[in-house]
């Protein structure tokens, strides 16, 4: 298996060099050359404007999937409480269903979880596949995989999305191998390709340094896990109908191989900037350890973690596990509040995957403003407390 370049057609435009995820193709003396890092992934073939790249990889045949319809969402729950990500998936599912003009269904497994149907409907489910069994009361890999795989085989959906939670990441790959389905992990964006109706699955790779868009043409349902906290949930009017399909799960004790002995909940988990949805970060402008106080107050109001730039860590104002940047962690929260940070590229490299960025800095020429969605020029020691109060006031209403 190899990639070939047609030198009569290649113009040395370097598009392949730019787009290769592995640095496996380079332009030398005006022509593209494949090097030893090439994995034959084929990304360059589709992206060459001159059609100069080809390979001996046989294009797989796409089976006829015209009978596959419907967008499905895995309704994750624990102890009869809906996981937040379920509502987010339904919010996303609503727009996918609209684009394809297909129905949105939720797959709900558990024991005594019938009361969740109303909530699923409120967040957009038009149909609920409900499987209840005492062996499903706590999530376990084998029985959940078995029941969901059977529901998929009988009902032939087109798309199946699951939250990228510890449960979803345990379950989804298991189903993908059982039913031989392509699966894309941890997506941050899903949409429909207007041309062929396929699901476009976009996710970060290489520690968030690169984004990749992936398609699953060869199997159905097209399966993806979606990062929690990225999609928005949307309530709909209650007048619409919701069909409930009771699934008879013929589970026996032999289907449950592992045994959960106990679950021990922990109130406060260790600092994990990677998982934080909101981060309030300080730079040189905070001035001292004491100067971080308003940042901690804002973080409290926003339910955020506090982080710092290299200088803040070197000065000892914050511990090293809270450093963001090239030498620290790469983070991609929903919201990043940069306070008194000038925005050196080394710092920006660690936070440019953030969904929204607020910059607060005294110097209006600070490069951080280029990396921000919203900027306020001012002293963080005045602006941050004002912002904290405004948020607390709003919450109080």
């Amino acid at each position: 298996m190899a990639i070939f370049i047609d030198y009569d057609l290649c113009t040395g435009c370097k598009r392949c060099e730019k787009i290769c995820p592995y640095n496996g193709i380079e332009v030398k003396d005006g022509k593209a050359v494949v090097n030893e890092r090439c994995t034959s992934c084929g990304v360059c073939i589709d992206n060459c404007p001159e059609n100069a790249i080809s390979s001996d990889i046989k294009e797989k045949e796409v089976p006829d999937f015209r009978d596959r319809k419907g967008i499905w969402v895995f309704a994750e729950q624990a102890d009869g409480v809906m996981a937040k990500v379920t509502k987010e998936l339904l919010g996303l599912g609503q727009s996918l269903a609209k684009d394809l003009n297909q129905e949105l269904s939720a797959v709900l497994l558990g024991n005594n979880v019938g009361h969740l149907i109303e909530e699923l409907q409120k967040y957009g489910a038009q149909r609920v596949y409900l499987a209840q069994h005492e062996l499903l009361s706590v999530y376990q890999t084998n029985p959940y995989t078995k029941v969901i795989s059977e529901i998929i085989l009988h009902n032939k959906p087109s798309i199946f999305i699951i939250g990228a939670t510890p449960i979803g990441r345990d379950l989804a790959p298991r189903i993908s191998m059982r039913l031989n389905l392509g699966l894309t992990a941890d997506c941050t964006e899903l949409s429909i390709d207007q041309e062929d109706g396929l699901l476009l699955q976009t996710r970060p790779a290489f520690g968030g340094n690169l984004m990749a868009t992936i398609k699953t043409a060869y199997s159905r349902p097209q399966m993806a896990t979606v990062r929690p906290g990225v999609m928005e949930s949307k309530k709909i009017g209650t007048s619409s109908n919701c069909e409930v399909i009771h699934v008879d799960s013929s589970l026996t004790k032999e289907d449950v191989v592992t045994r959960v002995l106990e679950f021990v909940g922990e109130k406060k988990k260790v600092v994990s900037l990677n998982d934080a949805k909101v981060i309030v970060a300080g730079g040189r402008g905070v001035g001292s350890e004491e100067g971080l106080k308003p940042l901690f107050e804002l973080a409290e109001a926003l339910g955020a973690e506090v982080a710092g730039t290299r200088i803040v860590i070197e000065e000892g104002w914050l511990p090293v596990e809270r450093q963001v940047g090239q030498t620290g962690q790469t983070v991609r929260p929903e919201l990043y509040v940069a306070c008194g940070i000038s925005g050196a590229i080394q710092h920006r490299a660690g936070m440019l995957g953030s969904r929204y960025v607020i910059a607060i800095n005294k110097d209006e020429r600070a490069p951080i403003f280029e990396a921000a969605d919203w900027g306020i020029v001012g002293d963080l020691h005045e602006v941050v407390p004002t912002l904290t109060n405004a948020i607390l006031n709003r919450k109080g209403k």
Partner: protein
Amino acid sequence: MNIITLIKQVPDTTDIKTDPKTGNLIREGIESIINPDDRHAIEVAVSLKEKYKGKSIVVSMGPPQAIDAISEAIGMGIDEGILLADRNFGGADTWATSFTLGKAIEKINAYDLILCGRQAIDGDTAQIGPQVAEFLGLPQLTYVMDIEEVDDRRIIVKRGLGNGYERVESPLPALITVIGELNKPRYPRVDLLINACKENARITLWNAADLKVSVQEIGLSGSLTRVIKTFSPKVKREGEMLKGDKGEAVGQLIERLAGNYLI
């Protein structure tokens, strides 16, 4: 107790720098390392072997240079390594990778426990462990943060789930994926490393024919997903400056935050 550990050689993504002008990755000079979670899996394998005897094998799929990762694992105390290297394995997605690894494990045949890191830092999918477990029809225990008990018939572990932990028991053979909290991986021993680099080192290369797999089932041809494009995350933003005194500016900011469901 015979233990198979699945490892991957990855680029050190914490080392990756982006071009400030174009936002493209600068890949030159990036070191290749054993995936961090996999080092913890190797540590489990070596310490279990010290306690229970038996054979420990690492298996990796990758280009020829991935042999360095296998040598390092042997340096840490693993007995043998198998590198699945074949041009036809290239471009594999997680399904095709798990299929190939599963075939290799079937060929090894004798095992009580299969260990993997939770996820690799270049792909972050966390799919290989569960997919291999399903391929082999084994129970899986993911996110393992502690091994409480293990004997030749069963294992009891703690699974770290973010909001707490779960204690689970499973019969063996089983597959477990481990997280960093589990242990502190040892450094390779120089004498073992030297042995690993000698000609008679116990490292075997298997290609597609050795695994009796067809080209259609592996690599890009076997993959069910396709990367259709890659791009850099956006570096520049609208950069809307909010004017007025601090009260007015904060007022506008609150509106924007609420409008985007951020508060």
